[in-house]
């Protein structure tokens, strides 16, 4: 073993000397190559378009990355190692034991953000406004795009669920308009205080309770996008499909650009769960034609609801 290692190192040293300065320069230049994870992910289906284009431009000129982008997908190098299989099994077992709680580190970190939000909300008025602003700022930077949303605890009432139509729990976030208002106006701060118990129930996945809490706020805050959006999603999870559609349609009518795509997505899911395949397809096709974070899954959802399995629902 020692001889084997010594020989390898000796050959490496010899080659390094013989290849000389060009090798050092090559290493220096390739130190600026994209991270290996990006190179490996280039042939996958998940990279954002802009990143993919930049990578393709790089790989066109970089022979090493070009070779690696192929070699790294060799069967031998993509097999699950025993240690990895063991860790996946452990994560899965932990998730099963938790029974419905999100298992990922990302989900745990999201819960921390949620807790800090509520802690700050209960502080004096000035701290409340600053805290909410900070929370929203952080959430818009880091978790505006949902970070691996937790799996829905209440399964949708379909006989078989195409994965494209899986119901998830959207991240809690606030509309920029709400945030701006909360800085100074007493009424806006009151709005946030009123929202707190409903959002707390929603975050705890107690959807029936959340739906009731949001319903109590509809008349008091008729322009509160959060009331109608999270209220609608809560009803969707609680299988109150007609109520979910009503609230999401109202949320849509508020024309909050920051929530528009998300509202359309969940409205499509609500129509699907209610058995109105045509209306669901309409929402998904609209999203599919646009350019938003929901575009690709909306295209898949549109296909899924058009298939016999996807259109099979039980009320």
């Amino acid at each position: 073993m020692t001889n084997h290692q010594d020989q390898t190192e000796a050959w490496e040293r010899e080659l390094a000397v013989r290849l000389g300065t060009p090798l050092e320069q090559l290493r220096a230049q390739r130190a600026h190559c994209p991270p290996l994870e990006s190179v490996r992910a280039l042939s996958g289906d998940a990279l954002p378009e802009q990143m993919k284009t930049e990578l393709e431009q790089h790989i066109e000129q970089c022979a090493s990355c070009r070779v690696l982008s192929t070699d790294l997908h060799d069967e031998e190098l993509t097999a699950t190692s025993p240690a990895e299989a063991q860790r996946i099994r452990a994560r899965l077992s932990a998730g099963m034991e938790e029974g419905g709680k999100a298992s990922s580190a990302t989900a745990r970190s999201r819960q921390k953000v949620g807790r800090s939000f509520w802690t700050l909300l209960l502080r004096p008025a000035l701290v409340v406004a600053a805290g909410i602003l900070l929370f929203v700022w952080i959430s818009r930077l880091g978790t505006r795009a949902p970070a691996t949303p937790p799996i829905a605890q209440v399964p949708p009432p379909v006989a078989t669920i195409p994965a494209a139509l899986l119901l998830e729990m959207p991240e809690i976030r606030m509309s920029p308009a709400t945030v701006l208002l909360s800085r100074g106006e007493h009424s806006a701060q009151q709005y946030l205080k009123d929202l707190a118990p409903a959002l707390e129930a929603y975050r705890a996945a107690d959807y029936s309770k959340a739906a009731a809490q949001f319903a109590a706020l509809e008349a008091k805050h008729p322009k509160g996008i959060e009331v109608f959006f999270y209220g609608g999603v809560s009803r969707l999870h609680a299988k109150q499909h007609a109520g979910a559609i009503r609230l999401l349609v109202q949320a849509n009518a508020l024309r909050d650009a920051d929530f528009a795509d998300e509202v359309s997505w969940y409205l499509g899911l609500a129509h699907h769960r209610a058995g109105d395949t045509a209306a669901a397809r309409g929402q998904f096709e609209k999203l599919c034609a646009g350019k938003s974070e929901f575009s690709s899954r909306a295209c898949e959802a549109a296909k899924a609801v058009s298939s016999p399995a996807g259109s099979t629902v039980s009320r």
Partner: protein
Amino acid sequence: MGDFETLYSQHLPAVFRYALKCVGRRDIAEEIVAEAFLALYRNFDRIDPAQLPGWLITVVKNRAVDYWRRVQLEQRNPAAGQWGDQGASDSPTVRAAAGERELERWLIESCANLKPVHRACLLLRFVRDMTREEIARELGITENQVKGALQFAFENLRKALPESAGRENK
């Protein structure tokens, strides 16, 4: 309907492979695969096994899209021009790289007959300057396997290198 354990064992390799292809990192792939199977477990009585592994693949893809979106937001991923060869082909960096490019081409041509694992180890060690431990972690193999692959690749390179090469460096 097959039981969950059977389906897990049956589909784990393909789902992991797909996750790795999408996110590029083994640790993140582990996490996403576990989440996908957990989603299957929680919805097990409503999923038709005939939909597998497609159902799991779609869940993994959605998680992977979320992952990259988060990476992009958090790191403001490297912008155009930050990666070595990007930008105008007559930039000083690229112009100065002509000698290295020749060496790189020779390296790759010389190991064209090697298995991907040997070639990947060689490029990661010689071009990316990664340690054996880092290579092992990146490729999901043991350090001993990396050493073995490197020895094979080095031997191959020594044979391909002209006798005169490097004499001027001494």
